[in-house]
């Protein structure tokens, strides 16, 4: 074989990969007998804490999944070809992808949905690249309140002449923690550096609702496209991206019937207006009729895919994630529009209950603006408190200093969330444990009176229902 290829050894096949990027030696232990391996894995698994009351969200959300979802996913018919290029043998898979695209399109209120991407971060980065291709501009603006991992992924995708600038957040007042619209306006005004796209999250990373129509209006006035980074369950109660002028919506599909499963695999949601259909990467499935006039499903606009366009494909970093897209479809279809609305509304109600309980023991909200089901609280020594709560069986969300270590305003803050699976008992345990950690006294520097007063005044939390 080497002779036929005209090369001396196998290593020559890897000459195109720079030496620095090649794996030299894999640091793997010696082979183990299966029994020993099983015992080792069981010991590792036993280190997982399954007893915790969890208030962790930060981009991944626990939801109750109807058993039908996992049961249907077990059917062998779904474990088929990676990508169903042949319609004559793949009608079932193609129909499931078509239904996924239809359901997500309805949630997003946008025309086109691609199936699909690795996760919300990858979908967001693809959305940013789409804006550059569509506008032939090279600079995007990303709100600092977009999930830090997503911002890192956008930065990793950008290079080779593409630029990312961050839009700062409002520091004080009623809008603290949301995208600084005045700063956005200034960033858009630079005539020498025209902006391709503006990216903002809704709810944002801190759980806050953003002035999306205003951000979109400013983006469009500067000739830029507007990308909404959204959480899909929230779309049952919040205005969908299409309704406030988003050209593209990206998001993490995990909340739709996919377990947190240690960080993946997940599902990247990506949708756009019809005007951008030739820019959207990933597979699109259309409905058509066959030669006998019967309804059929087929991959459409395929010529832009990587197997044909190679390096000029819309993206070479996308995948079907068909099984996870199917999970999302079954989840959404099983719950239905009313069920999904109940999930979102119940999560918001639980979060309101959580806010009151935490404020009462001296941990008020960090930012005052409206939120849906996730919010930051002010807790002095947040990282230490987080550890001590873990000892008491409480996973107190995320210490924001862990993910944004350079932002001093987040040094004393925890990001906590509630969903429909959060119970009143868990909320009471969290509050009691926090009070215990505080030593029965409100922590120094926290104005309990102000927090309690604030929490007694109900405010709009669930945004404007559709």
């Amino acid at each position, binding site marked *: 074989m080497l002779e036929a290829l005209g090369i001396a050894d196998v290593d020559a096949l890897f000459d195109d990969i720079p030496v620095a990027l090649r794996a030299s030696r894999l640091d793997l232990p010696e082979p183990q007998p299966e029994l020993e391996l099983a015992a080792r894995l069981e010991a590792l698994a036993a280190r997982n804490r399954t007893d915790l009351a969890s208030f962790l969200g930060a981009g991944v959300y626990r939801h109750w999944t109807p058993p039908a979802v996992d049961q249907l996913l077990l059917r062998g018919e779904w474990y088929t070809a990676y990508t169903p290029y042949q319609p004559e043998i793949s009608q079932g898979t193609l129909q499931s992808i078509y239904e996924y695209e239809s359901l997500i399109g309805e949630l997003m209120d946008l025309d086109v949905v691609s199936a699909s991407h690795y996760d919300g971060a990858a979908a967001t980065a693809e959305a940013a690249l789409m804006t550059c291709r569509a506008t032939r501009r090279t600079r995007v603006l990303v709100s600092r309140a977009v999930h830090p991992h997503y911002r890192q992924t956008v930065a990793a995708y950008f290079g080779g002449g593409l630029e990312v600038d961050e839009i700062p957040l409002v520091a004080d007042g009623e809008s603290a923690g949301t995208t600084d619209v005045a700063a956005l306006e200034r960033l858009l005004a630079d005539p020498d550096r025209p902006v391709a796209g503006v990216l903002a999250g809704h709810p944002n990373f801190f759980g806050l609702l953003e002035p999306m129509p205003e951000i979109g209006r400013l983006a469009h006035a500067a000739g830029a496209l507007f990308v909404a980074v959204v959480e899909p369950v929230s779309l049952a109660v919040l205005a969908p991206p299409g309704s406030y002028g988003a050209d593209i919506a990206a998001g993490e599909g995990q909340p739709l019937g996919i377990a947190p499963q240690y960080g993946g695999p997940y599902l990247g949601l990506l949708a756009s207006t019809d005007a951008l259909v030739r820019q959207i990467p990933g597979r699109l499935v259309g409905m058509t009729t066959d030669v006998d006039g019967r309804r059929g499903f087929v991959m459409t606009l395929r*010529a832009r895919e990587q197997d044909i366009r190679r390096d000029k494909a819309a993206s070479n970093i996308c995948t079907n994630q068909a099984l996870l897209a199917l999970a999302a479809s079954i989840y959404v279809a099983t719950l239905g529009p009313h069920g999904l609305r109940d999930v979102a509304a119940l999560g918001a109600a639980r979060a309101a209950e959580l806010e009151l309980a935490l404020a009462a023991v001296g941990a008020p909200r960090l930012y005052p603006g409206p939120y849906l089901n996730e919010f930051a609280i002010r807790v002095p020594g947040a990282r230490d408190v987080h550890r001590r709560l873990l000892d008491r069986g409480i996973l107190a969300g995320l210490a924001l200093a862990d993910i944004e270590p350079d932002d001093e305003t987040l040094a004393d803050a925890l990001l906590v969330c509630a969903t429909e699976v959060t119970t009143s008992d868990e909320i009471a345990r969290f509050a009691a444990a926090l009070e215990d950690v505080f030593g029965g006294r409100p922590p120094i520097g926290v104005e309990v009176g102000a927090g309690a007063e604030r929490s007694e005044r109900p405010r709009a939390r669930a945004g404007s229902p559709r």
Partner: protein
Amino acid sequence: MVPTDLRYTKDHEWVRVAGDEATVGITEYAASQLGDIVFVELPDAGRKLDQHATFGVVESVKAVSDLFAPVSGEVLATNDALTGAPELVNGEPYGEGWMIRIRLADPDETEGLLDASAYEALIAAG
């Protein structure tokens, strides 16, 4: 049959020069190789093109190809008819299937393009 009054590129574009303007399209050979053309993406008028720069994309049922500017200059007009009827490129590649009109930045550039016999030799060689 390759029209003798046009100039050609190795990328299978043709150019019809009239004064300081050039009309650009793709050849019959290119269109037949691509198959049924379903979409043509063209630049906005006013865009300045460098010679050999990508100015658009032509998409058939089986392939997508970039379009390369045979000459440099400013885009004066694009063939809007192709939006609704991209099949014109297959049917009348040298007529109604034209793509863009360019104001030539450097008329000498056309001298470097292939003439009909050279282009015919190119496609005959495959």
